[in-house]
Each structure stands twice: as C-alpha cells, then as structure tokens.
C-alpha cells in the first residue's frame, strides 16, 4: 500500500526502517503498524514521527504486554491532530509516572481514551490540567503498606480513565476536578466504593456529576420557567425534565447523529431536557423559554387531528405548517421573540439536498419552515414562495385553525412531491428544529395501534406497609470543598415513645422551691397588655396632670415642659421557642450530685420539665424535640411536644421516656427543627439547643466535618430569622462550641445546677 506522500518504491524500505526503530516483536503490531504509520505521516512532521516511534518503543518494552502499545499507535495520530505533536512530552511524562507506580494497568485505558478526551479539551492548558488531575487521583488513591512506597494500585483510576470521555462530554474541566476531588475525599480508603464512584455507578457519584454539569440545569431554573409559563402564557403545567444523553445543542452538529429527543407534552406535564447549554448565541434559559413558548402556543391554539387519514409524509408537512402557525400567533403577542426563534431555527441552504440520491422532503419542509418564520429568507423556489404567500393569507384573517393549515400542507405536499421522497436515504442536515416539540399531541387515532408507546399501564403492586414516615433528605456542608453534599442525610421523624407522666410530676415536686422562685421572676416577665407611655410631645391624649403643671410653669414665667401628652402601646411578647435536645449516648453518663449519683439524662429531664413549665406560664409557644443519629442514613428526630400542645400528661409521658443512645449529627436535626420553627408566625424565633458533647457520628472520621456543618446550619438559621442559642454541658465545649454558635452559648460546668440554670438562661435571653 503506497503512502499518500511517498508513492515511491522506497516505501517498503522506509516502513522497515520505522519497524526496526520500533523494535518490538509482538505479532499484533505488525497487523496495524503500516496503517497507523500512514496516519501518523499525514499529521506529524518527520521529527514528530520519530518521537512517536520512540514513545511506542518505550511502551512496547515496559512489560505490560501489547495493549498499551497498540492503543498508543492507534490513538496518537488523531490526538496529535488536535493538540499538536509537541504535546507528546507531557503525555510521555505522565506515562512514565504511571509506569513507575503500581498502576500500570491504567496505562491502557489512559491511552485508549486519549483522543476522545483531546477532542473535548482541545487546548494544551486544559489537557495539562487533565493530566495533572489524573496523576493527582493516582497519587491520592494508591495505597501503601509501610507508608514509604506506594504498593497498591489505585482501584478507581482505570475506571476513571474509561469514563473520562463520558464525563468530559457533560462537565467542564473545573467540574471534573470537583467531581474527582469529591471522590478522593470521600472514598479514598474504600476500594469498592471508590470503584463504584469513579465508574459512575454510585448514587452520590451521579448526584455530584449532575451538580457539576455545565449549562443551564432545569432543576435550578424550574421556578423561573414556571413563572414564565404562568406569567406570559397563563399556563400552569408541570415541568418535567428528561435526561438528554446527547444534548441537542446545535442542529448543525446533529447532521449525522440520530435525531435528538425533542421536548414534548402529555398528561403528566411538559417534558424538557434536563440541561441546555448556551448555543447559537442564545442562552440556555432563553432556549428553554423558546421551547415553552412553542409548547404553550400549541396548548392554546392547536386542536388534534385524526392521524389515520394521512400518510407519514403528509403528517410531517402538517406538523411543520402547524408549528409555523403557532409561532406566527406567538409573535403577534410577543414580537421580539422572533430573534430567539430565528437564532435557533436551522437555515437549510437551498440546493443542499440532491433529489436524485436523497429523500428531500425533510429538507424542503425545513426550508419552508424557515421561510415562514424569516421574512428575509431569500429562497428562490417558486412553490415555496407561493405557499409562503398562501400561508400569510390564511393567517391574515385571524388565528386560522389546525384544519386550515392542514389543508394547505396537503396541497404543498401534493404540489412538490417527487419520486425520490420515498428513498430510504433521507437528507437530515439542518432539518432538526430542536426547540420545537415532537407534536405527538397533534394526532388522534381512530384505531389504537400496537405501537410500543401504547401499552397499558400495569397496576403497580401496593407498596409494602412502612412502619415509619419516609425520610426527609438534608444536605451537609463539606468544609473542605466549601460545598454542600446534596441530599446527604436521611432524617426520620416520629413521635417520641411514652412513659409515665408521674415521673415528671415527681421531678417537678422535687424542685417546688425553685419553681416558686421562678414564678416570681416569671410574673415580672409576663406581658402587661396595655402600657401607658407618658411624657410625649405627641400623643393620643392630653395627660392632664403634666399639662396643668406645664401651664403653671408657663403662667409663672418658667419654661414649660412641652411633653404633656401620653399614648398607649401594647406590650405583647411575640416569641416562639423550640428546644432541641441531644439524646446521644453520652447523655447516659453519671455525675455526682450532692451525696448520690445522677445521670445527665435525669438532670436534663428535670431541667426541661422546669423550663417547659416556665414557658407555659409565660404563654410563649414552645416545641420540644430530641434527636440522635446512627450514620447519615438514619438521623432520628423525635417530637416531645408540639407548638400547639399544652403542658399536659401526654407531653410529660414522652419526656419521662427519654433515653440516651447513638450519636450527635447536629446539623441535620437543626435544619429540620428550623423548618418547623420558621413556620411559626411569631416575630421572634428562638432555638435552644441542649447538648452534652460535640457533633460526631460513627461514619465520620474527620472531627471538624460535623462541627463545620453545624456551624453552617447556624448560619442558615440566622438567615431564616431564627436565633440559636446553645446550652452545653460539656466542660471542654469551649474548644468547639464557639466555632459553631459564635458567642451565643453558655457552658454549664456544674451540671447539678442545670435545672435551675436552664429556665434562668431562657428568661435572661428573652427579657
């Protein structure tokens, strides 16, 4: 086979020389070497070819079999075509580093996906970024036994390299970096989970992947689009995303690809792609708006037709005419949408389709559609121009109707029909109008067909009875990446089990003296409804005593006091309180009280009972809840008292049954408590957190993580107008509690005084 640039007789000799330079005896190499070399000679300089062969020799001799060499020989010429041949040293360096590590198995996938990656990262900087990222991932996930040499291969690296093109299809390099960092951080020491993560199998891998995608995500803009639909179109359909595996971005790029999934609507709502990139000079959000406008137009103006009467080609034409009718009507309402439609609508070139070899119907219709939208279309075809004119006339009289344009469409098909329209070879280029829906709503069928879409919905088996409510998911703050882990914590709420109310009454009796003292304090706090404000210059009434005194002053020549009025104001407390109790294992610890011993739990019960009683006296709405956690999959939130519940026996029974167990995942519990507190109508909202230790959980090794998460949730609560205050029973709490709550905490060293201190603290806070 002659080389394109050297059709001379010397070719076999040159081939042999290169073969000798490669110096390897794998039989498989012989089969592909010549073809690869011809590719290489086409894009590489002579020096480049030499470097290519040298690198190949290295790969052939490094003792990893023939696969890396084959992958390299096949991939490099096309990669070099994108990146330039001087990118080889950087690649070579990466190969060397991988080779020297125990990760030799990763070389083959690295080389196999190189060209696909290069197509996504065509600049050298981006490619370098990718190489650095690969090495970092390898470095951080390779295991070592004695801490000196890396001796275990990275479990996730080959998976990552295989997925790299898929990932880069949807992520920018920065997003890929975040995704990789997340995997390293969370699954660095867990081989199976690491593999699941890097092969995009695990749920959170996909969740982070979704979050990092580039483009405009439907979920992020659902409200905006909902408002758009409602405001501009008076339509309130549900928006449902579907996964757009290949982004129908530019219609020009779709020439060879299969037709992308178009938006559509059915009984369950309007289906839109889950993500849209900016394309063709139109922002992602405007592309969504264009689709929605089009669909809303159909919903308003289209009436279904019977499909059985038409051939598939006739139907296609009717759809195009109907779409154009809808858009004409849309533009009457919102004329400036035209430039968005024009930008998104393909511009098929006249004569691009050869009717001798291809079916041109699609092309003709796309041209017609363009011409109906764009007055400056410039097409010369006589039939097309005539039908544009007839369409304009049809529409001039008003809204026309689906039937009217269907008639027009049938006439058009009849007029322009060609024998070649029946050819299997369809001209697709520039004919996909990606923002329009697929018009499935336009057709009704006399006879239900046996299409796949027509199956009956099978009745689903009744779900198994669950013994608790489904979980609520909360995010958790990861301070290392400064980002939320989406839906990380599952929180289950339930009513706290009940015990014996008499226990709480006994505890209250024990503190009867304290209660009496508190009562005196409480009376001072109790709101006096109408308060007279005296000494006002402006007020609702004349305060006669003062007025007379001023008059006397005035008459006797002294300066009178002008503040002779008084007014009234109401002095109501408008405060809702939620007391959140940490019910973790450490609550069971014993402390010395006087002569005997008591558990922290008992003291907490006493303190909470007294506080609840005190707040009941004041009349502020109070809720009490407890929480503990057993890994992020099971955070439990237990209701002890609701806002509307009185301080009665049911509440006391629940308090009496309080028990210690499990761990303290504070952030999720606070977020959950906040959603109840935020719903209270009170002007001031206070969340008291009674805890005896720092946030921790069995599935978290990093001590700081849950502390930082709790701190973040305090910030979130503050933004919701909730004042948080922590009462800590941990003497060593100063180390972390300030980080979480800022200055808003009190550490109670002397735990036996808790029952006394807690109500006092509350009163001091709310005075």
């Amino acid at each position, binding site marked *: 086979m002659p080389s394109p640039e050297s059709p001379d007789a010397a070719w076999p000799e040159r081939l042999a020389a290169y073969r000798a330079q490669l110096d390897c005896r794998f039989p498989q190499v012989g089969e592909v070497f010549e073809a690869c070399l011809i590719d290489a000679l086409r894009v590489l300089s002579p020096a480049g070819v030499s470097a290519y062969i040298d690198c190949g020799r290295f790969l052939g001799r490094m003792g990893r079999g023939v696969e890396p060499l084959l992958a390299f020989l096949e991939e490099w010429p096309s990669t070099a075509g994108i990146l330039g041949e001087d990118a080889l040293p950087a690649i070579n360096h990466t190969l060397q580093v991988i080779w020297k590590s125990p990760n030799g198995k990763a070389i083959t996938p690295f080389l196999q996906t190189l060209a696909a990656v290069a197509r996504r990262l065509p600049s050298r900087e981006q490619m370098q970024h990718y190489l650095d990222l690969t090495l970092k991932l390898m470095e951080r996930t390779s295991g070592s036994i004695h801490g000196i040499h890396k001796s275990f291969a990275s479990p996730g690296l080959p998976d990552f390299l295989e997925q790299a093109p898929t990932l880069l299809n949807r992520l920018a390099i920065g997003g890929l970096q975040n995704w990789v960092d997340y995997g390293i951080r969370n699954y660095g020491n867990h081989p199976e989970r690491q593999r699941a993560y890097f092969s995009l199998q695990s749920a959170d891998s996909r969740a982070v992947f979704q979050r990092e995608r580039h483009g405009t995500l439907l979920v992020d803009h659902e*409200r*905006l689009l*909902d*408002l*758009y639909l*409602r*405001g*501009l179109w*008076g339509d309130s359909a549900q928006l449902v995303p579907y996964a757009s595996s290949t982004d129908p971005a530019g219609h020009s790029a779709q020439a060879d690809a299969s037709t992308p999934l178009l938006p559509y609507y059915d009984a369950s709502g309007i289906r839109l792609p889950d993500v849209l990139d900016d394309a063709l000079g139109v922002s992602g*959000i405007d592309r969504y*708006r264009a689709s929605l406008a089009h669909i809303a137009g159909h919903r308003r103006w289209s009436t279904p037709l019977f499909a059985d009467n038409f051939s598939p080609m006739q139907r296609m034409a009717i759809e195009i005419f109907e779409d154009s009718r809808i858009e004409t009507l849309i533009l009457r*309402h*919102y*004329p*400036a*949408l*035209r430039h968005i439609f024009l930008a998104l609508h393909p511009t098929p070139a006249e004569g691009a389709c050869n009717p001798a070899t291809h079916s041109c119907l699609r092309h003709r219709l796309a041209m017609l559609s363009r011409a109906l939208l764009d007055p400056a279309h410039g097409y010369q075809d006589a039939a097309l121009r005539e039908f544009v004119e007839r369409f304009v006339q049809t529409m001039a009289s008003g809204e026309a109707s689906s039937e009217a344009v269907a008639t027009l469409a049938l006439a058009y098909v009849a007029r322009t029909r060609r024998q070649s329209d029946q050819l299997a070879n369809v001209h697709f280029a520039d004919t996909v109008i990606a923002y329009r829906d697929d018009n499935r709503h336009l057709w009704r069928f006399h006879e239900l067909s046996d299409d796949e879409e027509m199956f009956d919905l099978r009745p689903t088996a009744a779900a198994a009875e669950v013994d608790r409510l489904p979980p609520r998911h909360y995010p958790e703050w990861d301070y290392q990446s400064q980002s939320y882990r989406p839906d990380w914590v599952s929180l289950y709420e339930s009513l706290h089990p009940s015990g014996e109310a008499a226990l709480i009454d006994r505890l209250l009796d024990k503190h009867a003296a304290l209660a009496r003292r508190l009562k005196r304090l409480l009376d001072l706090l109790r709101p006096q409804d109408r308060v007279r404000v005296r000494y006002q210059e402006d007020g*609702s*009434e*004349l305060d006669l005593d003062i*007025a007379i005194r*001023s*008059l006397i002053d*005035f008459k006797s020549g002294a300066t009178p006091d002008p503040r*002779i009025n008084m*007014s009234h104001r109401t002095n109501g407390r408008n405060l809702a309180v939620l007391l959140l109790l940490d019910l973790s294992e450490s609550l069971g610890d014993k402390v010395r009280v006087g002569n005997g011993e008591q558990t922290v739990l008992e003291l907490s019960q006493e303190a909470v009972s007294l506080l609840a009683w005190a707040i009941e006296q004041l009349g502020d709405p109070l809720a009490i809840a407890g929480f503990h956690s057993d890994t992020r999959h099971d955070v439990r939130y237990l209701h002890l008292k609701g806002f509307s519940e009185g301080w009665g026996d049911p509440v006391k029974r629940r308090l009496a049954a309080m028990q210690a167990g499990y761990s303290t995942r504070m952030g999720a519990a606070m977020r959950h408590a906040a959603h109840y507190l935020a719903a209270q*109508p009170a002007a001031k909202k206070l969340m008291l957190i009674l805890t005896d230790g720092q946030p921790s959980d069995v599935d978290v090794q990093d001590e700081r993580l849950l502390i930082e998460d709790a701190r973040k949730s305090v910030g979130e609560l503050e933004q919701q107008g909730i004042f948080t205050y922590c009462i800590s029973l941990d003497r060593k709490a100063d180390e972390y509690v300030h980080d979480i709550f800022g200055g808003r905490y009190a550490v109670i060293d002397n735990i036996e005084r808790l029952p006394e201190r807690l109500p006092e603290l509350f009163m001091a806070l709310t005075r």
Partner: protein
Amino acid sequence: MTDREQFKVFQAPFYQPQRNEVALYEAAYAARLPVMVKGPTGCGKSRFIEYMAWKLGKPLITVACNEDMTASDLVGRYLLEANGTRWLDGPLTTAARIGAICYLDEIVEARQDTTVVIHPLTDHRRTLPLDKKGELIHAHADFQLVISYNPGYQSLMKDLKQSTKQRFAAFEFDYPDAALETTILVSESGIDATTAAQLVSIGAVARRLRGHGLDEGISTRLLVYAATLIKGGVTPHDACRMALVRPITDDRDIRDTLDHAIDATFA
C-alpha cells in the same frame, strides 16, 4: 365653622366607569348609606370617590389611616393654649359638622379600637358622641362615610371586625379589563393605543403571577406611570423596568420573567 368650600373638588377628575358603579353610588348616597370600596392597590378606588364627590358637588375629607392613628386623631383632641385648653375637631368630626363625604383610606391599617368610633355614625343614629368634650354631634344631612380596604394583602391581624363590616354597602373593584385599561392609559398619559395595549399585556403577565411570589400584580396606577414616562421620551424597555418591575419585586426570578416579558413585547 370650618370653611366648607376648601374641601370641594373643583376640577373634574378623570374616571372611566367600569360598570354601573356611578349610578349605584348615587343611589347609596341618596339614602346616605355608608359605603365600603374594596379592591387591590392602584385600581382606582380613591379616584372613584374623588370623582363621585365632584359629581355630587359635595366636599370630600380624606384620611389616610395608619397604625399609629388613634381615635382622637379622627375625632379631635384638646390642645393647650395660653389660657387653658382648646378643643380641636378631628377630620371625622369636621366632616360630620359640615356635611362632607369622609373617606377613610385603608381603614384596616388603623388600630381596631379606632375603627369602633365610626360605629354610631354608620347606623340609624348618625351621631358622633364626643365624650371628652361632652357633646353629641348630629351629623349634617349631607354627611356620608366611605371607607376603602384592600383584601389582598392583609394579614390575619389586619381584618375588619364583622361588626364594622356589616355597616356598609360595598363596591368591589378590580383592575379594568384590557380594552378599558388601554383606554385609561391613553386618556391619562396621551400615548398611542398600540403602546398602551402592550403595556396592558405586560400588566396582565404580572397579574397572572399573583400568589406565585407577587402579592399584587402591576396596578393601573403603575401602568399609567410607565405610559407617562414613555410619553416623556423614555424608551419602553427602560420605562417598564423602572415603573413596572423594579417597584413591585425584589425576587430575582420574577424580575427576570417580567424583564423577559418586556423584551418579548417591545421589539
């Protein structure tokens, strides 16, 4: 005696009737029934009352209610003078004496105890006792009480008592329909009918978002502002953003949607 003439409405206010409310009001006035006008902000409640006062040739005393307003702000109070105290009539008392239409705008903003003082004026008694002064005023034959309130934005705390509500004949106002509103914009600001219709359609967009982040839609008053700005040479895009969107919302999504509606409407 207070000068009755100063409260008269001399220039005919522009008012575009929506239905037969003018005739109904005249009937209510003939019977001296107290009247309540309800409706969203800026839909023409106050303009209607002003117009009716002009049409009937009666003086009009308007009180804008607020939550610091007390009963004595309505009825009157003693003031201090060099030689003792002097009684000063409040607007309600003045209206009852001179026979004016007393219009309490946004009555629910006033405290509940305040609204009770109007009760004796609104039933068969038509009297106003001034207990501090020891006087009982019999209302002038021309006196009529009108209150306005906006049921849209009230909280639970701000609602009229049943005992107050059940003393009034009521008119319910809403934004006029598109054609009527266009006419209003044209006559108030002098812009052309096409632009006016476009403004009205933007107003309709916002009104459809009521309850989805907007407490109230864009009022006719704001549309008139926008029209006036456009008439004054401001581009429609800027005028609408300034007069229609920025005043009513701080919500980014809603702002973007309305901005988009403006851009889509004005080519």
